[in-house]
């Protein structure tokens, strides 16, 4: 299974939902997906195209475009192709369906994205802060307009 056949299969199965699909090299492909269909596309990728390995899931903040991109990097144990899939959300109220029913390890990635970017995941089994103390929830520190960085409290600097 190579990059070309994967992209062809994906775009023919989801002609409306998947757009801007492209092949960067033999082992790297990119595609954008509509936020409502993320779970369906992921299920198809896992069951029919053997993309069983969620490498990571994260978000990128674009204040200029007023968008948050949720990025899924999905690999496979069978073939070396990696698909970078993006879903574009509005910055004010980023809400997307959780992919935990398909990829079990998305659990922590989604909790982390929630506390660092403020992306809310629907139907997540246990959406609560992961790495930050509960008091810092709502500050969204990895957004570009976060005010608390750099932290100026250090006194012993040379």
């Amino acid at each position, binding site marked *: 299974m190579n990059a070309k056949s994967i992209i062809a299969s994906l775009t023919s199965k989801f002609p409306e939902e998947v757009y801007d699909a492209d092949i960067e090299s033999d082992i790297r492909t990119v595609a954008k997906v509509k936020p409502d269909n993320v779970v369906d596309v992921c299920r198809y990728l896992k069951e029919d195209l053997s993309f069983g390995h969620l490498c990571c899931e994260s978000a990128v903040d674009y204040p200029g475009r007023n968008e948050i991109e949720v990025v899924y990097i999905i690999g496979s144990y069978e073939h070396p192709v990696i698909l970078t899939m993006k879903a574009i959300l509005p910055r004010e109220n980023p809400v997307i369906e959780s992919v935990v029913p398909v990829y079990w390890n998305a659990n922590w990635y989604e909790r982390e994205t929630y506390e660092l970017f403020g992306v809310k995941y629907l139907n997540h089994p246990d959406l609560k802060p992961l790495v*930050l103390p509960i008091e810092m929830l709502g500050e969204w520190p990895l957004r570009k307009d976060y005010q608390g*960085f750099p*932290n100026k409290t250090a*006194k012993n600097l040379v």
Partner: protein
Amino acid sequence: MDEIEQTNVEQTTVQNVGYDDVPGMVLTDTNTISDIIKKTKIQDVLNWGRKNSLWFMVNAMGCCGVELLSTGMAHYDTDRFGIIPRNSPRHADVMIISGYVTKKYLPALKRIWDQMPAPKWVICYGDCAISGGPFYESYSTFQNVDEIFPVDVFIPGCPPRCEALIQGFVELQKKIEAKKDRGTDY
């Protein structure tokens, strides 16, 4: 059986009377005794014992933690100075802050510090614990650890080598011997 019960009763009555009422008896407690001892030569003997058994708690918090593990093992053999790694804070005399203290970890670290029996000392091992190191501007780390814990020795480096930690312990031993350490109130 009856006799034993009787003696118990007698003891409780003595306690109720109080030591002040018994002629010739001086009221004292362990704090008073240690205060008296601090002014005498016995304290030197105690400090000699303390400085030669500095058991440290293994709490690998960052990059320095891995050097901490190496130091405790056979190659550097800190046992010859009486320095032994312990896993439990209840067994330890020295807490080594071996990395960045985060806002989430600080309450736990204070609790670990409270669990250690006195006399106890703190060593700041590595730049992160001293000044924040490479993470001085992070949103999640807590700076100025030395305002919270009575730090005796600072060991700079990122991470410092194992020999530096051994030297830090030797400096701490010198401080204890000279009664200049912050772990005990002189």
